[in-house]
């Protein structure tokens, strides 16, 4: 393991609790143990459990929301599927100017968007998954399919920020699991989420199935944007997730510190803008680590009203940074935990005059 990879390994352990057993996941063998335990999980007796002497809230029945007057249904067709994922398709680290040696490929888990009715894929599986968008008053109707044939585990989609009933929470909770919290391989489920006035903002969605710890860290996460009705979009809008692919997950003796599933400028997203454009970045932390979002040559106003160029990110929290572009050139963005930056958590921002 080289120096930079070693520095990036810190905090790589993941803690999983499966079937009452807590497993510290540090090695591929630990991961295999957790995966096997999750595969053995029986479907929760959701309906029976709710009627079987549990708390009265567990027997509550819920309807499916409709859009508010003037709102609309925004339908998405999303599948989850594992795939072999190369963290550095170009094979180059443009930031430090050297090759990124193999092995770089492992089995990840990703969301993929399809056209209506799962008629045709609208692109390859992606990390992060497709961005979901709505305006206040809309409902998001997300048709979700667990299409994985490798891991043999139930997965879900759990949203932040929008309003949902327990059925559409997408969370595995043992005997208290509702219908949307355990979507087994080959199954489909339609989540319905409301964009309420207090949903305005940028949020994460991610797997919250029985193996959320591993499968979110394998790539099952994405971004959800709710805008005010009729609100204009920025000219350039970037969504970035800072996260790691740890050795236990990848079975590779390196800790890949990633932006959107890739390491190092040249593989991570290159964001491009022109002077005069309204530019907005939404940057998430998508693992169990502390990160920061720092970009060279630019400043924005933080929530406390002060200006900043380096803002803290925790797990599944985000920073939104906006400005009108006025500084042309090649700029670097990165996490300012330096061991993360040097293990790949960086990328380019190119501004044309």
């Amino acid at each position, binding site marked *: 393991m080289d120096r930079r990879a070693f520095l990036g390994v810190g905090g790589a352990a993941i803690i999983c609790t499966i079937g009452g057993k807590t497993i510290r996941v540090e090695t591929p063998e630990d991961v295999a143990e957790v995966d096997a335990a999750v595969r053995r999980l029986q479907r929760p007796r959701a309906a029976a459990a709710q009627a079987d002497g549990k708390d009265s809230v567990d027997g509550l029945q819920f309807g499916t929301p409709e*859009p508010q007057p003037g709102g*609309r249904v925004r339908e998405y067709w999303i599948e989850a599927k594992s795939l072999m994922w190369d963290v550095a398709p170009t094979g180059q680290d443009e930031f430090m100017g050297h090759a990124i040696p193999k092995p770089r490929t492992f089995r990840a888990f990703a969301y993929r968007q399809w*056209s*209506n*009715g*799962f008629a*045709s894929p609208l692109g390859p599986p992606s990390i992060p998954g497709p961005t979901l968008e709505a305006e206040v008053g809309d409902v998001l109707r997300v048709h979700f399919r667990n299409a994985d044939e490798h891991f043999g585990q139930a997965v879900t989609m759990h949203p932040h920020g929008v309003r949902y009933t327990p059925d559409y929470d997408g969370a595995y909770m043992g005997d208290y699991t509702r*219908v949307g919290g355990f979507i087994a391989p080959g*199954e489909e*489920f339609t989540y319905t989420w409301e964009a309420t006035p207090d949903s305005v903002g940028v949020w994460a969605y991610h797997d919250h199935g029985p193996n959320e710890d591993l499968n979110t860290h394998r790539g099952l996460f994405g971004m959800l944007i709710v805008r005010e009705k009729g609100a204009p979009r920025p000219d350039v809008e970037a969504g970035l997730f800072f996260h790691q692919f740890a050795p236990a997950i990848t079975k590779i003796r390196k800790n890949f510190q990633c932006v959107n599933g890739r390491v190092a400028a040249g593989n991570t997203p290159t964001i491009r803008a022109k002077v005069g454009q309204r530019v907005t970045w939404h940057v998430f932390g998508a693992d169990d680590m502390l990160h920061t979002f720092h970009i060279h040559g630019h400043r924005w106003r933080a929530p406390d009203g002060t200006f900043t160029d380096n803002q803290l990110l925790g797990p599944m929290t985000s920073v939104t940074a906006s400005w009108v572009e006025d500084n042309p050139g090649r700029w670097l963005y990165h996490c300012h935990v330096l061991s993360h930056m040097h293990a790949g958590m960086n990328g380019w921002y190119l501004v044309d005059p």
Partner: protein
Amino acid sequence: MRIRKAALLAAVPALLVFAAPAVAQDYPAPGNPGKVQKKPKGPFKTLRVCKKGCKYTSIQKAVNKAGPGDTVKVADGTYRQPVRISGIKKRYMKLIGNPAHPERVVIDLRRAKGAAAQNAVMVNGANEVTVQGFTAIGYKANGFFVVNAHGYTFANLRAMLGGVYGIYAFNTIGGTMRDSVGAWNNDAGFYIGQTPPQDKPVRTIVENVDSFGNVLGWSGTNMRYVTIRKSRFYNNGAGIVPNALTSEKYPPEEDNVIAENDIFWNNFNYYAGAPFELRPPSAEATPYPVGVGVLLFGGRRNIVERNRIFGNYLAGAAAVQQFLLQDESAKDLVGNEVKENQFGLNGTDPNGRDLVYDGNGTGNCFGPNEGVQTTFPADGSTFVPCPFGGANSFSAAVQQEMVNWALDGTHTAFWITHPHAPYPGVTPLETYSTYTGPKPE
């Protein structure tokens, strides 16, 4: 007004007649598809069937000996007995003919009598059965038929010159139909009906199928969660007609997607001659009008998008309230979308009318679409572009005119005809006696 009302009522059995279940005599009663059956673990065996020199010369006898997950492999040849795959003990069974050349493994029921003549292959109550690589011919009811099951795969099949439906799934949850042909059936080439509503809907995917020479290319009474994609529906009386009826459970049809298909030349006037026997006419019965590409007869949240729709002489894509449905709560069109389709093949092969809609219901929208030259009503007053969430603008006059089309005894009086552009490998069929394309044997 009373006369008009009477005309509407006269149309009732007409529209029923084509979507009702086939009149086969050995249909199993539709039951609850039940719980998902446990996937067998094996070991699995392969039983071989051939005309000479194998342990089995009868497909049915091999099926009877097969256990869950086993494969019955059928050699090229013509077999003259029907096949029935029933019950949980046949779950995950594979019945495999010649997927590369399904025309070489034929189940020919033309000489069969009684119950044996009904269905060439029927799957009842067995989950995830695969039937692949066969031709069915001469069946009185259905070519390939699955009922009361969770999941199935029908692939590389040809259902030709038969009774009612070519390839048919009824009261099933999920499944796949692909790379198959349904032709010369006296009702529909393909049909999925009475899909149970589900908390966790499992979609049925239909892709790369050809349906031609049938009364209907696709019939979908109370069909749910079905995606029909990248397929071709042509030279039928009508192309694709998802519909709602109370003669089957769970009306209306809902949540279907018809995408990226070619739907063209559905102008087969089978009344003037057909290779199949027409179903008995009823004094009250008038079927779907001839010359329609896609017709939503009631339904909710169906999406018709990115299809090429051309050369249909009455209408390219139409939607009308299921005004005859007894269940008042299910008769209106709700949330259907017809968008991003290409009409008229860039002006070279127009439809009689590209879009037709009576304005019934709420949240139904049309467009943007490409190539729309004509609509009914001509002023476009019932159409709003997508997305749309409000009440639509109903026109009783438009609905009445659509009833008139269905009642037209000539079947062609309302056509607006145009010359067709060439389509590789397909010859237009309007009158069977003058049809110069390949006819069934």
